[in-house]
């Protein structure tokens, strides 16, 4: 998979409210990835890495760190637009993600307004699994300079 290049960013000037951005489809979440994210982030809550502990606390098994899924959305946002345009990013974690889930990140333009500094773009976003279950939803705001 290749990363974005400057020319591959979305042209927000040509987008209008309700327009969709190209979805980002992630590879299925793996247990190794959860361990890796635990080490990277420092979130060593064992419900993300140890099935026995997860089960003891009433879960069917390990669950992904919510902020890892938020990280997938962050990946999508900074592929759609240069990172420095990002002003605000908020998510609500609604459902648990399990190993094997394939997450797709989607977004649509909700609002497009002018400010003295440039174009303000508010987008609604969500991350869904292969069944269409919403794992998180939220929004982000970009300031696209003139």
């Amino acid at each position, binding site marked *: 998979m290749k990363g974005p290049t400057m020319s591959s960013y979305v042209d927000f000037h040509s987008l209008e409210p309700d327009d969709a951005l190209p979805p980002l489809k992630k590879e299925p979440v793996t247990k190794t990835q959860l361990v890796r994210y635990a080490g990277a982030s420092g979130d*060593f809550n064992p419900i993300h890495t140890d099935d026995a502990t997860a089960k003891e606390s009433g879960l069917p098994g390990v669950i992904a760190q919510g902020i*890892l899924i938020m990280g997938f959305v962050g990946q999508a946002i900074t592929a759609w637009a240069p990172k420095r345009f990002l002003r605000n990013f908020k998510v609500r974690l609604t459902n648990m993600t399990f190993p094997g889930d394939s997450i797709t990140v989607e977004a649509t333009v909700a609002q497009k307004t002018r400010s003295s500094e440039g174009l303000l773009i508010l987008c609604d976003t969500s991350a869904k699994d292969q069944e269409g279950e919403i794992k998180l939803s939220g929004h982000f705001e970009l300031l696209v300079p003139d």
Partner: protein
Amino acid sequence: MADKTKAGADLGAYTFEVSWVKIRELIQAIGDPNPIYHNKEAAVTEGYHDTPCPPTFITLAFQEFTGFFLKVLDTLGIPLVKSLQGEEEYEYLGEIYPGDLLTIEPRVESIVEKKTRSGPMDLVTLRTRVSNQHGVEVLRTRSLLIERK
């Protein structure tokens, strides 16, 4: 059950040093191929001074490396395995780069009990202000922490 008397409590400022290796680890765990996070030249070409931190990087400053999250749970009396993240919000005021020494100022904004379909839960709202070694505020965060009972 979260200690409701801690609502409004200042949790004490602490520092966190940003390293390129941790940015790299995070970006590899997420699986993000964006060249601005992997290659300083690509970042500089796009107008950054250095490899910028990805949007969710600040979560590292809240976790076990700094002891912050465990301290919050301990202060509030919430068992680690009963804690879940409900919401997370970042307001970006400036870039964060490798080598930056961040000062994190966290506060418990509120603690509310809520009845849900899956039973009662305590909702804890934490807010932090993050500034760099130049005294520039670079980020504000708001986190909603859930205690499953």
